């Protein structure tokens, strides 16, 4: 059953100073609770850039496979790849304190990748929907799914240079038929402070959904 004899060289850092697989920044040994936030959006909207802007590790990517019958490895193995769909997604993380780490996932918003969504959303605190004002329609499907999952979210508008004036946030809100209580903010995914602001907006929104007065103290 062995695919290869177990003779691989030790991982980098083995034997020396503790160095996790992420190289530069291993998780703290005391971490016991990992939290998730998902960033969804259309092709090229800036998901990976956002993950990279706030993550303490360079964004990593991996993939999940699905076959027509579900996540059956049997079928995956017999790759007649017509029957296999692979979805790549990336992620980064932020150590919050000695016990908690926050994982950020960048997930493609296209409908054909629906099968990864359950896994990513499962247990997530909430989501950020990134939109490119030149392709607002790319966000319709993710918005629909988030509502279906009853996953709380905020919308971040990534401004790309393009011809013509940029639509105002109010126009974007209308075009996306966003309810008034869903936070909608501008964002530049390349800037750490901007991404940090989006995440804080999301978490404040979550706290407010939980208890409308939750953050009043903090705000004063």
């Amino acid at each position, binding site marked *: *059953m*062995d*695919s290869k004899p*177990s*003779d*691989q060289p030790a*991982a980098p*850092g*083995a034997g020396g100073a*503790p160095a*996790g*697989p*992420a190289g530069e920044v291993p*998780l*703290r*040994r005391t*971490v*016991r*609770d*990992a939290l*998730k936030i998902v960033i969804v959006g259309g092709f090229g909207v800036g998901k990976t850039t956002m993950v990279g802007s706030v993550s303490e590790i360079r964004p990593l990517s991996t*993939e*999940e*496979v699905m076959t027509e019958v579900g*996540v059956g*490895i*049997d*079928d995956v*193995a*017999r*790759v007649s*790849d017509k029957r*296999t*769909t*692979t979805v790549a997604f990336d*992620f980064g993380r*932020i150590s*919050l*304190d000695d016990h*908690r*780490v926050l*994982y950020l*996932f960048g997930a*493609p918003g296209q409908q054909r*990748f629906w099968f990864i969504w359950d896994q*990513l959303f*499962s*247990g*997530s*605190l909430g989501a950020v929907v990134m939109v490119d004002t030149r392709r607002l329609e790319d966000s319709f499907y993710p918005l629909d799914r988030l509502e279906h*999952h*009853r996953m*709380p979210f905020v919308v971040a508008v990534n401004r790309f240079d393009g011809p013509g004036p940029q639509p105002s946030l109010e126009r974007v809100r209308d075009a996306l038929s966003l309810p008034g209580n869903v936070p909608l903010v501008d964002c530049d995914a390349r800037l750490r402070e901007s991404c*940090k602001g989006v995440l*804080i907006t999301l*978490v404040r929104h*979550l*706290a407010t959904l*939980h*208890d409308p007065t939750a953050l009043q103290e903090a705000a004063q």
Partner: protein
Amino acid sequence: MNPRPLDFDDPDRLYTVTGGRSRVDDDALDLVTLVVAENDPAPGMQSEHVAILRLCRHEPVAVVELSSHLRLPVSVVKILLLDLRDTGHITVRHPTSATTVNHPADLETLKQVLVGLEAL
């Protein structure tokens, strides 16, 4: 991000790695379940098991990070991890504040997340 053939060497590797098993006990491990090695690899162990134990022997590593470093799909890594758990080679730390529709994150957790983010 288009669907594409699996990008590791040999598609048969998936089948071999898992011994042809397709079972994924889906609830048993989350993407962010943290994995800790409890002991060193035993002689003759399957190479992927060895690789996992080496990756998480100094500190916890999330399932999804193992998947990324091993360049294996998440569902395959989960199968390998359940083997290791069942034989006592690893322990796992489940995400304790994981939310569901009916159980959103508690306020205290959210406040701690805010503190962490503001300190970024």
